[in-house]
C-alpha cells in the first residue's frame, strides 16, 4: 500500500518534507504523554515506594503473600488462551469459507455473525449468564426435552465456570478472527480460482494450494491479535466467575480497587504488557522466518 500511494503523490507535495512530521507531531506527543509517561510511572509504582526508594514489596506480595493468586492468574490466563484460541481460529476459518459462498440472505447472516463485535465483554459475560444460569435458557431447554432432570450448575463450580468462560469467549471473539480471515479471503482474486478450474484442480487442491497459502498472512494477523487480546481477558471472567478463575487483568483490577494497592496493580499491568510484547515478538520472528522460507 505504501508503494501504491507513493506513486500517486504529486511532485509539489514531495518537496515540502517537514509537513508530514508536523502532521504527526500531535499524535507522537499524545502517545508520549498518555502511553510513554504512564509506562514509566507504572514501573515507578511497581518498584519504588513513595519516598522514591527501590522496593521489592510489590514483587514479594505477588510471589509470597498468601492472599496473592499470581501463579493461578498466570496459569489461567495462559490456559484460557490455549484452549480458546485454537477453537476460535478453526471456527472462524470454517465460517469464512462458508461466507465465501453465495447464498440468499447473506448480508443479514453476516451482520448477525459480527454482532458480538459490537458489545463489551461485560455484556457478553452477562448474556451467557442468562443462557447458562440455573433458570437459564439451556437448562430449561434441556430439562424440557428430557435430556437432564436437574439443572446443570455452572456458577460457583470452578471447572464449570471455566467452561462457561470458554463458551462465552468463543461466542464473543470468534467474530474478530472471522472478520480478519474473511477480509483476507475476499481479497483473493477470482482469477486464481478460474485458473485452478481450467487446470481441473479439485476442491481440496484449490484449498491447499490457493486459498490456504494466500490466506496465511490473514491467519497470522488474526492469531497475533487474538493472542494479545487474550492476555487482557477481564470482563467475561469477572462477570462469570469473579476471582474463582483468577486472571492477570482481574487480579490487577482487584489489587487496584479492593486491596487499594496500586503498586501491585501496576506490577500486574506490566506483566501483561511484558507477556504481550514477548509473545508478539516471538510470533513476528516465527512468521518472518516462514516468509523467508517461502521466498516472499
Amino acid at each position, binding site marked *: 500500500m505504501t508503494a501504491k500511494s507513493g506513486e500517486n503523490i504529486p511532485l509539489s507535495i514531495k518537496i515540502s518534507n517537514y509537513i508530514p512530521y508536523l502532521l504527526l507531531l500531535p499524535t507522537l506527543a499524545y502517545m508520549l504523554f*498518555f502511553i510513554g509517561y504512564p509506562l514509566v510511572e507504572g514501573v515507578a509504582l511497581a518498584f519504588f515506594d513513595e519516598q522514591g526508594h527501590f522496593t521489592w514489596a510489590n514483587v514479594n506480595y505477588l510471589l509470597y503473600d498468601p492472599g496473592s493468586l499470581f501463579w493461578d492468574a498466570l496459569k489461567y490466563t495462559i490456559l484460557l488462551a490455549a484452549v480458546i484460541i485454537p477453537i476460535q481460529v478453526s471456527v472462524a476459518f470454517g465460517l469464512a469459507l462458508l461466507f465465501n459462498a453465495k447464498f440468499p440472505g447473506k448480508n443479514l447472516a453476516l451482520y448477525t455473525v459480527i454482532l458480538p*463485535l459490537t458489545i463489551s465483554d461485560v455484556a457478553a459475560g452477562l448474556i451467557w449468564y442468562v443462557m447458562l444460569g440455573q433458570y437459564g*435458557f439451556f437448562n430449561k431447554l434441556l430439562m424440557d426435552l428430557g435430556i437432564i432432570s436437574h439443572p446443570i450448575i455452572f456458577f460457583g463450580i470452578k471447572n464449570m465456570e471455566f467452561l462457561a468462560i470458554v463458551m462465552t469467549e468463543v461466542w464473543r471473539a470468534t467474530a474478530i478472527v472471522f472478520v480478519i480471515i474473511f477480509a483476507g479471503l475476499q481479497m483473493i482474486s477470482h482469477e486464481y480460482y478460474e485458473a485452478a478450474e481450467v487446470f481441473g484442480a479439485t476442491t481440496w487442491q484449490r484449498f491447499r494450494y490457493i486459498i490456504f497459502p494466500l490466506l496465511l498472512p490473514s491467519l497470522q494477523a488474526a492469531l497475533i491479535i487474538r493472542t494479545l487480546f487474550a492476555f487482557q481477558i*477481564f470482563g467475561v471472567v469477572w462477570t462469570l466467575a469473579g476471582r474463582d478463575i483468577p486472571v492477570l487483568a482481574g487480579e490487577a483490577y482487584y489489587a487496584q480497587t479492593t486491596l487499594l494497592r496500586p503498586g501491585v496493580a501496576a506490577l500486574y499491568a506490566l506483566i501483561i504488557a511484558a507477556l504481550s510484547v514477548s509473545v508478539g515478538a516471538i510470533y513476528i520472528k516465527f512468521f518472518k522466518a516462514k516468509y523467508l522460507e517461502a521466498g516472499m
Partner: protein
Amino acid sequence: MSNEKILLSRGDIIRYYTYRIILAGLVIIAVVWVALPFIMTILYALADPAQYYDPRVIIPTSYTLKHVNQLLILGAYQATINSVIVALITIGFSFLIGLPAGYAFARYRFRGKDSLKLFIVALRMFPMMVIAVPLLVLYFKLGLADTLIGIGLAHTSMALPFVILITSSIIAGVRVDYEEAAMVFGLSRIGAFFRVTLPLALPGLTAAAIFTFIMSWNEVFIAAVLSFQNRTLPAFILNLIAGSTDFIKFAGAFIMVIPALIFVFIAGKYLVRMWGITLK
C-alpha cells in the same frame, strides 16, 4: 438427444442440492448460535419473574419493564449518558489528533514513514489497560481523576492508532487527482482538503467515528479504574452486578446490548469493512 450435454446428470443434481442443503444448514447453525443468546437475553430481561422461575417456561410470554427501569434508576441512566459523553470526547480528540496523522500517511512520502507506521500498527496491539493504573496517579495530580474527560482522554490513546490507520486508508482511497485539480484552480492545500477530500471521505469517516464510539462504549477496565462515581455504563454494571439479583444482571445485559444492535443495523456494511482495515 441433441441437448444432452446441457442436461445435468441425476448425480450432479443430487450433489448440487446436497451441497446447498449442507451450506444452508451450516449458515443457520452459525446464525442461531450467535443470535440466540441476544434474543434470549432480551426476552429474559423483560420476562415476568414468575415465568422466569418456572422451569417449564422456556420462552416467556408476559413481560415487564420493571427491572430495566429499576436499573436505570439505580444509576444506569446516568451511566449511559456518561458513556455517550466519554465516547464523544474520544471521537473528538482521536480525530483531531489522528486525522492529520492519517492524512500524512496517506498523502506524503517521508523519511521514517514505514517505521512510524509500523510503530502505530504495533501500538494498536499494545495492551492499553496497562496505562490505567499509573494514569490515575497522574490524574489525581491534574484533577482529572473520576472525570469523564479523564476517561475520554485515556480512551483516546486506545483509539488513536485505529483512527490513524482507518483515516489513512480512507484518505488514500480518495483520488489525489481531485485534490490536485482543486489546487490548480486556486485552493490552498488545506482548502483542498476541507472542500474536496473531506466531503468525499465523509461516509468512511462517519463509519470510523462509529467504530471509535463502539471501542470507547465497550471499554471497561480503564473506565472502571479511572472512575469512582462518574462511571461509564460497563464500569457501572461491572461494579453493580457483584451480589445483585439475576434480574439486575439481565437488565444490565439488555441495556448494553440494545445500542449494539442499532449500530450494526445502521452501519453493518461499513463496520465489516472497518474491521477488515484495522485488524489486517
